[in-house]
């Protein structure tokens, strides 16, 4: 008996060594074929020219973007790592806060040395501004902290000097800023006042005997807070403060104060503390600043709008304080534009990773003993990701359109830019947060790994919904502007012009009662619904407010009460503005596969926006049957966009190294042999 056992054991061992097939002594133990990773490219093909679509999506400066991607890939400062047979570049978020801050600064100096920031302040004109936007966007794709630091230094500090300052300020500060001889920050926000800039409590007075301004933090709520770069690196600050001249408060003004000397020591009469560890963006050193009657030279008032002469006389080209305040805030619009575009690039990153993963990951078989099904072959998975993809596409066109209008701005277009940029900033940043959450869930547990990026981006980008203007407040700003425009046109009995309200001059659109598939996909129909929705909400909003105003209530108070209608209206306005930009882009294309696919994407954007908006049913713009048809059409579109999913994310132009391991061979990335 024991001899047989030994003999059988010897056979088994011999089989291991010779690797010959097992004798089928135990048929129930058939070896399962192990899951084999298959790249998406193996099963999917490109139905259109991806290069062409990328040109449309990025819009401008493709070569500069690719050059910057290359610069980052080729330096160890950007933390290249090999995973699953490929190189990825991504910061090491496991470093301490201090280390992350230091290495962010080193990365900036590397890029500075390579000439990336040349002309960011000293060159003017639309081309220079667009190039700057493009390079800024690419930095954000690598690491939003990098972008945020550059934003504080160039777009806040630098642009403040450029637009609030005059020649003497430009000559003294701009080149040094571009060369990082000066490291700037922007001290506007306070502990007690963020979105409500006008209420800030820092006070500046003037001493005519010494020709100095004296900046003071009168109480704890007045401390400057969240000031990027202030905690460690900045040596100069733009200080936004109330200016009190001879007992009269002249309102918000802009000053330059040195806060550190060239050895990095805090200047006298300035106190700085750290904001501490954050849920994201720990590569940015946010600080808090107190001014203890800090004295600065008179010349340090940035005097493009208002000035104080040597004898202490206050002068301003704008008499009305409200208008003066508006003039101060106008240059900050570029912040809203860049935030909106960074939000979309972040959404693109999340979607590229989640969709590529879903084209290689399988779960559950539908047929017994059949192979497991690819995630993106499930209608439910398509429904989660493809509408978000279509919205991201639409918003990408929208933000490019905004960028173009912004760089060619004139005093006449400033108001519209202010309104549109506010709406876009709110809607696009909210969209990004929602998209990232969905993408995180769509990749399951892998989304918890920092190096897979998708989940980590949530913490990094969350701030976008509240900085540079809280989203909710910005949306209210949009409807207030629409209200003002409506009331003004009606009062003067003039046709609507501007803010996209021209459609209100035509008769009210009548929608067909039956919504067939071809109707739903027709651009004219889509435009009509969006216009009808906006028109109806604007009329309701203005009539509610006007009626109650007639009974003696203040307009401001009524805006607060009617906040829900106001929110519906701003959303309708913004979504319509976005739709228009995609339609414009689509119309410019010659017939062909790119135009066809973009048409599908556009319809998906329009219909998912309608499907998700309760106001259509609530206010009766669409019937219950209509809404049912819209929903069915969205599902149909999911199926039609599915074969284009890979090409659509490839068109984002984000190089493989900037995505993450789960977008590629995630099996090999996790293999024992790669440890």
């Amino acid at each position: 008996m024991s001899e047989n056992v030994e003999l059988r054991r010897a056979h088994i061992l011999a089989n291991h060594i010779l690797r010959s097939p097992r004798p089928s002594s135990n048929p129930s133990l058939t070896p399962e074929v192990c899951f084999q990773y298959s790249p998406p490219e193996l099963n999917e093909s490109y139905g259109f020219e991806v290069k062409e679509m990328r040109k449309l999506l990025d819009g401008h400066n493709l070569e500069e973007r690719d050059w910057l991607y290359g610069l980052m890939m080729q330096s160890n400062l950007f933390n290249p790592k090999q995973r699953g047979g490929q190189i990825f570049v991504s910061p090491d978020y496991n470093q301490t806060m201090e280390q992350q801050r230091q290495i962010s600064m080193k990365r900036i100096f590397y890029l500075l040395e390579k000439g990336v920031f040349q002309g960011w302040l000293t060159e003017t004109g639309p081309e220079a501004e667009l190039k700057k936007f493009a390079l800024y966007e690419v930095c954000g794709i690598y690491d939003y902290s990098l972008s945020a630091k550059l934003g504080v230094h160039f777009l806040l500090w630098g642009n403040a000097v450029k637009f609030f300052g005059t020649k003497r300020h430009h000559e003294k500060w701009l080149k040094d800023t571009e060369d990082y001889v000066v490291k700037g920050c922007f001290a506007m926000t306070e502990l007690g006042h963020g979105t409500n800039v006008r209420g800030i409590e820092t006070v500046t007075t003037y001493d005519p005997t010494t020709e100095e301004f004296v900046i003071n933090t009168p109480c704890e709520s007045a401390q400057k807070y969240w000031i990027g770069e202030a905690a460690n690196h900045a040596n100069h600050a733009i200080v936004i403060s109330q200016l009190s001249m001879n007992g009269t408060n002249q309102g918000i003004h802009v000053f330059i104060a040195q806060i550190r000397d060239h050895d990095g020591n805090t200047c006298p009469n300035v106190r700085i503390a750290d904001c501490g560890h954050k849920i994201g963006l720990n590569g940015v050193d946010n600080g808090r600043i107190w001014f203890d009657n800090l004295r600065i030279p008179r010349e340090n008032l940035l005097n493009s709008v208002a000035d104080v002469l040597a004898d202490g006389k206050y002068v301003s080209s704008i008499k009305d304080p409200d208008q003066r305040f508006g003039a101060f805030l106008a240059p900050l619009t570029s912040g809203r534009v860049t935030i909106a575009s960074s939000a979309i690039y972040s959404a693109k990153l999340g979607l590229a990773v989640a969709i590529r993963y879903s084209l290689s990951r399988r779960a559950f078989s539908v047929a017994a003993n059949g192979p497991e099904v690819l995630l993106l072959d499930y209608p439910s998975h398509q429904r989660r990701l493809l509408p978000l993809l279509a919205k991201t596409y639409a918003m990408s066109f929208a933000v490019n359109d905004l960028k173009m209008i912004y760089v060619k701005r004139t005093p006449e277009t400033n108001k519209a830019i202010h309104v549109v940029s506010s709406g876009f900033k709110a809607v696009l940043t909210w969209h990004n947060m929602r998209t990232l959450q969905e993408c995180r869930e769509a990749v399951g547990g892998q989304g918890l790994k920092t190096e897979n990026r998708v989940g980590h981006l949530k913490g990094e980008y969350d701030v976008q919904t509240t900085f540079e203007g809280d989203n909710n407040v910005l949306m209210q700003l949009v409807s207030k502007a629409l209200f003002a425009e409506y009331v003004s046109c009606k009062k003067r009995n003039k046709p609507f012009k501007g803010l996209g309200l021209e459609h209100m001059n035509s008769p009210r659109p009548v929608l067909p009662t039956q919504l067939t598939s071809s109707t739903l996909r027709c651009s004219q129909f889509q435009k009509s619904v969006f216009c009808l929705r906006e028109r109806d909400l604007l009329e309701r909003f203005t009539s509610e407010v006007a009626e109650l105003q007639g009974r003696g209530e203040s307009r401001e108070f009524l805006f607060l009460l009617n906040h829900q209608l106001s929110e519906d209206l701003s959303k309708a306005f913004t979504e319509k503005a976005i739709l228009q930009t995609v339609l414009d882009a689509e119309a410019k294309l010659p017939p062909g596969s790119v135009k066809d696919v973009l048409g599908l994407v556009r319809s998906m954007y329009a219909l998912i926006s309608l499907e998700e908006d309760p106001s259509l049913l609530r206010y009766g713009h669409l019937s219950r049957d209509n809404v049912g048809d819209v929903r069915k059409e969205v599902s149909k579109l999911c199926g039609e966009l599915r074969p284009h999913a890979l090409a659509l994310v490839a068109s984002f132009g984000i190089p493989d190294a900037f995505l993450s391991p789960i977008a590629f061979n995630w099996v090999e990335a996790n293999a024992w042999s790669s440890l």
Partner: protein
Amino acid sequence: MISRLLQLFRAYEEDPSVKLVILKGQGRAFCAGGDVPPVVQNMVQGKWRLGADFFRDQYTLNYVMATYSKPQVSILNGIVMGAGAGVSIHGRFRIATENTVFAMPETSLGLFPDVGASYFLSRLPGFFGEYVGLTGARLDGAELLACGLATHFVPSTRLTALETDLCKVGSSDPSFVSTILDAYTQHPHLKQKSAYHRLDVIDRCFSKRTMEEIISALERETTQELDDWSLTTIRALKKSSPSSLKISLRSIREGRLQGVGHCLTREYRMVCHVMKGDLSKDLVEGCRAILIDKDRNPKWEPRRLEDMKDSMVDQFFERVEEEERWEDLKLSPRNNLHALRIAAKL
């Protein structure tokens, strides 16, 4: 030879008795590159499609090697240039020796570093790849190992023993080959004047966005110290075809961001445009001046970098639209897309 290699490689992949493939040259070269004059003949006679077909096969071979499921060991015991790099660098293991002389000299001929060079050069450390591809600089065995183009260095006297040991390997698992090669490999010192000692200057200059800025940066470097290296480098660039320089730079820059398949597809478009000869006749002129008449005085068109506009560069990267039956190089995705093992220095 290319079609024969393609045939063999495909057959070996299917043949279970083949565990690995060893590629070596005979005589003083591993492979000195493609035979350019016959290709140019085809161009001049309007038979550009014959040239294009040849490149199609060659790039397909390069792709098969880059995605091969079995280890390829190339023994670079001698000259390895141009197409010779194409049939070796994409393989998993590259053995340099003290006799190795590597170069991608295409820009001096009016061509551009092809055979997937936009993929492997762009992945060298820093901007060394731009330097190698634009200047046609020669690298020796030690430099090849240092930058990662070679994976190992074995003195020529030990090659026979190495081959014998490799032939004993009974599995396609690359770790078996690795173990043997790691035992043989040496780490020779770079020569004192090696360009590889100048990575900081190379990175400073060759990271610039445009060709013009690269040359200005190099000229600024020469004013610092009277230096052979920078003068030689500038001279090499100034002798090369301006259109070649600009399309090569863009090719490497785009290649950095693309997989090997996309790189080869893009290079195929570019080489078809070169073959057609309507965007530029520089290859014909380069072949004449360097290979046939050997006067080494080519008359490029355009002569100056500034006259080679971006829009002209763009055209080399477009599909070949005006020709019937022209198709992009279709490389069916294979499952073994492994990263080039150049990452040794990470």
